[in-house]
C-alpha cells in the first residue's frame, strides 16, 4: 500500500496488480507513452532527454546496479559493488552471463566508455553531474588535458573501480552504472566518430541495443517501438513474447485503455475519475518524486561571484509576510477539486518519496487565513485606505506580481485561485504581464530575476538524490528565490558530508533543514502528487513497488 501523508486522506492505491494468473507464453503487452508529442527517440542514457525515451530504454536497457526503495544502490543487479572504507572508491564486478543483445559480453570498459562520454569535452548533454564531476581526474579529462580519467581503473574484463574526490552519500543514489556498448555505437575516444555524429547516429536512434529483457525490433520514429523477448536475459526468460510501446494522445488515453488498445498507461489527473470507473482497468499509484511550489523573489543572482545574494529591500523581504502567504493558500481545495485528490498539500521541501528523510511530523503551514491576517497585521501591513487591500508599513500600495506557467488545463484556475486566496487576506496580487507565461518565457523571467516577478509558481522533480543543495544552495543557479543563510549552508553541507553516510544522522540533518525552510519560507511547497498508472486487468506480475520482485520489467506478463 502506498504511503499516506498529510492531514487529509487522499485515496489509496495499490502498488501491484491483483491478477494472480499465470502469464501466457506468447503474450504481447501494449504500453502507452502518454503524450500529444512524438517521443524524441534518443535511446542512449548519456544523451536522451525526454522522459519517454527513458521509458522506452527501461525495456531494453538497464543499469548494472539495481536500487532499493530509497533509490540507493544494491547488489542484486547485473553487477555487485563494494565501497571502500573511506567511502571514496567503489568497485563494480559484472556478473557472468550478462550479454549485449548482439551477443557480445558486457565489459567493464563499456562502463568506462560511458564515463568517457559523459566527461568528454565535446559532451553537451546534461548528465555531467556532481557524481561524475566528483571522480578523481575528471576535471583534467573534462578540460581535455588528459585522455584518461585517472580515478577510473579497469581491473579486468568485468571489474572496474571508480574513485571520488570526496566522499558523499550522493554516491549511493547518484552513481552512474549504465554502460554504453562501445563496439556497437562506435568509439568517440578513438576518433571513430565525433560526439555529434554519435548523438544523431542510427545506432542509438533506430537500432539501439542494451542488455535488458527485451530487444528492439523496429522503431517508427516518434510513434511506436516494437520489442521482442531477449532469450538470453541474465535474470531469466522474460515473460512476454513482445512489447509495443506507442505514443497515445492524452486526449484518447481513457478510450484506448477502455478498448484494450493499450495495457499500460499513465493516467493524467483530470481523467482519473473516468478511468476509475472502467472495470477492465486497475489503477496503481505511487508518490512522485516531485512537488509544486510558490517561490518568493527575495534576492538576486550575483553574476560576479556566481552565487545567490539576498536583497533586504525586496518586497517580500519580511518573512512574516511570506509565512502569512503560505497560511493563506488553500492547497487542500486545489488538490481535492482540481486534482481529484491526486495531489495533496505539501508540507516540507523533501518529498515523502524519500521515506527516510521526509519529516512526516512537520506539518508545514496549513491553510489558516486568520493566522495569515494576524501575521500580516503583526508585520505592519494594514489596509489603511479601506480599499480591501493592505498597504505596506510605509502606507504605500502593496502590489505583488505573480508569474505562473501556462500548460495543462488547470494552470489558469490555480493561479487565479491563489490570487483570490491572497486577496482574501488583503494582499493584492496580479499576474505578471497579465497572462500566464509559457515554459520558456516563464523560466527566462524567473531565472533572470526580472523585477516584474515577485512570486512565481513552479515545480521541481527531485531526482533520486534527496540532497537539496542543487536547488537551495548558495551557489545553486536554480535557487530562484535567491535565499541564502548561514544555517542553510551549514545544513546542506552536512547533508552530503561523509558523516551523512549514516542514514540516521542524515535524517536528523534534513529534518532540521526542513524546519528551517518552513520557518524562513523562501518558497512554499504547495502540492505533493501521485503518479497513476492504468493497467489492464490481464496484466500480471506488474508492480511499481520498489520493494517488490515484480518491479523488474522482465517479470511483467499478460494472462490469457
Amino acid at each position, binding site marked *: 500500500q502506498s504511503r499516506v501523508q498529510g492531514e487529509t486522506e487522499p485515496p489509496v492505491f495499490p502498488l501491484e496488480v491483483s491478477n494472480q494468473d499465470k502469464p501466457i507464453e506468447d503474450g504481447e503487452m501494449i504500453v502507452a507513452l502518454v503524450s*500529444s*508529442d*512524438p517521443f*524524441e527517440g*534518443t535511446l542512449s542514457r548519456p*544523451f536522451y*532527454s525526454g522522459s519517454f525515451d527513458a521509458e522506452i530504454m527501461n525495456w531494453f536497457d538497464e543499469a548494472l546496479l539495481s536500487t532499493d526503495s530509497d533509490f540507493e544502490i544494491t547488489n542484486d543487479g547485473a553487477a555487485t559493488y563494494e565501497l571502500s572504507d573511506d567511502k571514496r572508491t567503489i568497485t563494480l564486478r559484472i556478473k557472468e552471463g550478462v550479454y549485449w543483445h548482439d551477443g557480445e559480453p558486457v565489459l567493464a570498459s563499456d562502463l568506462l566508455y560511458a564515463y568517457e562520454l559523459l566527461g568528454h569535452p565535446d559532451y*553537451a*548533454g*546534461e*548528465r*555531467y*553531474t*556532481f557524481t561524475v564531476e566528483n571522480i578523481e581526474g575528471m576535471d583534467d579529462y573534462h578540460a581535455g588535458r588528459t585522455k584518461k580519467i585517472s580515478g577510473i581503473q579497469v581491473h579486468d574484463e568485468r571489474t572496474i573501480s571508480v574513485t571520488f574526490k570526496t566522499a558523499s552519500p550522493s554516491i549511493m543514489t547518484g552513481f552512474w552504472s549504465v554502460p554504453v556498448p562501445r563496439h556497437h555505437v562506435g568509439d568517440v575516444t578513438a576518433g571513430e566518430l565525433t560526439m*555529434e555524429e554519435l*548523438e*544523431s547516429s542510427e545506432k542509438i*536512434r533506430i537500432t539501439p541495443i542494451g542488455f535488458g529483457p527485451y530487444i528492439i525490433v*523496429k522503431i*517508427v*520514429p*516518434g*510513434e*511506436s*517501438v*516494437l520489442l521482442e523477448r531477449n532469450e538470453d536475459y541474465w535474470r531469466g526468460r522474460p515473460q512476454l513474447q513482445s512489447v*509495443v510501446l*506507442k*505514443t*497515445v*494522445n492524452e*486526449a*484518447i488515453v481513457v*478510450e*484506448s485503455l477502455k*478498448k484494450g488498445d493499450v495495457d499500460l498507461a499513465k493516467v493524467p489527473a483530470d481523467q482519473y475519475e473516468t478511468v476509475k470507473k472502467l472495470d477492465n482497468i486497475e489503477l496503481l499509484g505511487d508518490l512522485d518524486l516531485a512537488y509544486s511550489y510558490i517561490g518568493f523573489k527575495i534576492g538576486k543572482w550575483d553574476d560576479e561571484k*556566481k552565487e545567490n545574494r539576498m536583497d533586504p529591500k525586496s518586497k517580500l523581504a519580511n518573512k512574516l509576510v511570506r509565512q502569512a502567504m503560505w497560511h493563506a493558500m488553500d492547497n487542500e481545495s486545489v488538490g481535492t477539486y482540481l486534482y481529484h485528490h491526486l495531489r495533496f498539500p505539501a508540507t516540507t521541501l523533501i518529498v515523502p518519496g524519500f521515506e527516510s528523510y521526509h519529516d512526516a511530523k512537520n506539518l508545514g503551514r496549513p491553510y489558516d487565513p486568520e493566522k495569515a491576517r494576524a501575521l500580516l497585521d503583526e508585520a505592519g501591513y494594514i489596509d489603511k485606505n479601506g480599499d480591501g487591500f493592505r498597504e505596506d508599513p510605509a502606507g504605500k500600495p502593496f502590489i505583488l506580481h505573480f508569474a505562473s506557467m501556462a500548460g495543462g488545463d488547470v494552470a489558469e484556475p490555480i493561479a487565479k485561485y491563489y490570487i483570490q486566496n491572497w486577496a482574501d487576506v488583503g494582499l493584492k496580487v496580479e499576474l505578471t504581464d497579465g497572462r500566464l507565461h*509559457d*515554459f*520558456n*518565457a516563464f*523560466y*527566462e523571467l524567473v*531565472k533572470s530575476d526580472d523585477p516584474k516577478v515577485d512570486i512565481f509558481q513552479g*515545480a*521541481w*522533480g527531485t*531526482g533520486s538524490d534527496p540532497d537539496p543543495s*542543487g*536547488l537551495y544552495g548558495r551557489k*545553486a*543557479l*536554480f535557487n530562484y528565490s535567491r535565499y541564502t543563510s548561514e544555517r542553510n549552508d551549514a545544513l546542506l553541507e552536512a547533508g552530503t558530508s561523509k558523516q551523512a553516510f549514516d542514514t540516521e544522522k542524515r535524517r536528523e540533518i534534513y529534518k532540521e533543514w526542513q524546519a528551517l525552510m518552513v520557518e524562513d519560507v523562501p518558497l512554499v511547497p504547495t502540492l505533493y502528487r501521485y503518479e497513476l498508472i492504468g493497467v489492464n486487468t490481464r496484466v500480471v506480475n506488474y508492480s511499481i513497488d520498489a520493494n517488490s520482485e515484480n518491479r523488474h520489467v522482465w517479470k511483467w506478463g499478460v494472462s490469457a
Partner: protein
Amino acid sequence: MLVFIVRRTLLMIPQLLLLSILIFFLAKQMPGDAVTGAFMGKPNVSAEQMEKIREQHGLNDPWIVQYGRWIGDAVRGDFGQSFVHKQPVTQLLAGRIENTIWLSVATLVVTYLIAIPLGMIAGRWTGSWADQFIVTYNYVSFATPVFVFALLMLYVFGFVLNWFPSGGSVDIRVEEGTAEYVWDKLKHLVLPVLSGSLLLTYSTVQYLRNEIIETKMKDFVKTARAKGVSENVVYHRHILRHSILPIAAFLGYEITGLIAGSVFIETIFSYPGLGRLFIDSIMTRDFTVVTALVLISGAAVIVGTMLSDIILRMVDPRIRLG
C-alpha cells in the same frame, strides 16, 4: 513556357531570401533560446555548462553572423542541429515530412474530389434542394472550427464506431514496402484527411458554384447550346473548363490553409507531421527547427503559387500569350 518557368523560379529566390531573413530575425527575437529550453527544470546543470553550450553553438554571435552561417548551411540542405532533439534538423524533418506530405496531398485530393462535384452540382442546379443543401453545408463547414470538428470525428469514427485507427501514421506491425503497409497508411489517413478536407472545401465549392453560375450566362455557352450540344456536354466541356480555372489559381493559397489546418489536425490525431513539430518546437524554443519549418512552409506556398501560375499558363491560352 520554359522561359516562364525559369523566370518564375528565379523570382522565387529573392522571395525565399526575404522570407528567411524575416523568419530568422523573428526567431532570434523570441525570449529564451534553445539552451534555456533544453535544460530548464533539470537542476543539475551549472550555469557555466550552459554558457559553454551556448558558445559552442554560436548562440552568442551577432545575429547577422548567425544568419549568414545558417543560410549558408541551409542552402546546402543543412538546417543545423536541433537542440532539443539532438539531431540534425534535416534528419528530424525528413522523418516527419513524409507524413505531412501524405496528409496534405491526400487532403488536397480529397478536398477537390468532394468540392468539385459539389460545386458543379450546386452551380448547375442553382436553387434546387441539392444546391440549398450544399450551400448550407458550405456555410456550416466554413463556420465550424476545425478543432471542434476533428475532435468530433475522432470520437464518432475512432471510438464510438471504431472504424478507423485513432492516431499515428502507420501500425508498427506491417512491413514497409508491402501493399499492406500502404493500405495501413491510408487507413490512418482517413480521419485526419476527412476532418481537414470536409472543412477545406469551402472556398472551392463557393468559388466553383459562383463561377459556374456566372459562366452559365456567358454567350459562349449559348453558342454551344445553339450548336445542339447536349446539356451534359455543355457543362462538362464548356462551362467546367472555363470555371475550373480560378480553382487552379487558388492552389497556392490552398496550401496556406493546409499548413494552418495541419497544425490542428496533427495535434488532435497524434499524427507525427510538421505541424505538430512546429508547435512543439516553438514551445521548447528549438528555433533551428522553427526557422526551418516556417521556411519550408513558406517555400511550400511559394512553390504552390508557382505551380498554380504554371498550371494556369498551361490551361489558359489567354495568359500564355498575354
